[in-house]
């Protein structure tokens, strides 16, 4: 949503883009979160 302000403008980002802001958590936990999110998105 950070780029909602450029929707329908020349700077609009691809609708197929997924941006991850990756923090300093344990990488295993980040991966588990991604797995969970992907599973939910296709269920």
């Amino acid at each position: 949503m950070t780029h909602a302000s450029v929707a329908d403008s020349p700077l609009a980002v691809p609708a197929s883009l997924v941006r991850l802001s990756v923090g300093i958590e344990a990488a295993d936990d980040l991966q588990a979160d991604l797995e969970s999110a992907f599973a939910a998105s296709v269920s």
Partner: protein
Amino acid sequence: MAGMTDKFETLAVHAGAEPDPHTGAVVPAIQMSTTFKQDGVGELRSGFEYGRSGNPTRIALEQAIATLENATHGLAYASGLAATQNLLYLLEPGDRLLMSDDVYGGTWRLADKVWRRYGIETDAIDLRDLDAVAAAFAADRPPKMVWIETPSNPLMKIIDISAVARLAAVAGAITVVDSTFATPYLQRPLDFGADLVLHSATKYLGGHSDVIGGLVATRSDDLAEKLRFHQNAAGAVPSPFDCFLVMRGMRTLAVRMERACSNGPRSSAFTTPACRIIRPPSWSSARCGCPARCSASRSAAGRMRHDGSRGRRACSPWRSRSARSSRSSSFRHR
């Protein structure tokens, strides 16, 4: 200690923080006073008069970002966009602004929806195309400022700061680099010829999702004087507590960036058949030999500091193959 080293990690811990001469406190105090007693009419103590014009906690933060960016002047603002707004005050009605075609949405909104109304035209092009940049500066009304965001948000384009800054300098234009995503830990744009470097301190510099802030650094006395005037005149200054929080975050920037940089590629490399996530778009053209395949190291002249352990991105844009190949894909992201 900070004055005796050029090691970033040490500078980040100590920059802007000289022990208090009275108490020995090693952390700058949060000075909330809005008004400072004068010893006589116009006789200011240490230059302080009114909190918007100058505040000790803010000055500590401003010195800290100046140190980390190899600059001589630092300026702090209430948000990254407040900092952006202040830089645009350097332009006059009728001036043109050249901008990356992949900048933070708020930057584009400010230029396109606000400053255009005040007579400043913004042209957005792919600043990786140096022929296009040269053509822009050769136009009848060349831009007075070029706004680089590298790595860009969200597509992670890497722009050659030195090359663009050289073209701008020949045309007498100001080069600005929004270095929010790199932070001074990975990239110091002033070392590559930029006139001004800007940060949304809300992101990695603050680092704890608990403060909004903006920072600017420069080596130009002239630009610093103009910005200082507008910082006070327009008044978008951060609170002393916000300054404390940003500075506190900056102390640990190096270790946080190390972890974020190692977590980023690992998360990007993770794939799942359900969504067929493929590589970040910019990696395919990076032609980088480093283990992280990072586009940062593509800039052979060292646009970003890169030694194999640094320069990997902590923020990873992906494209979903399923979403690209089918509009009816069940994969959605906003």
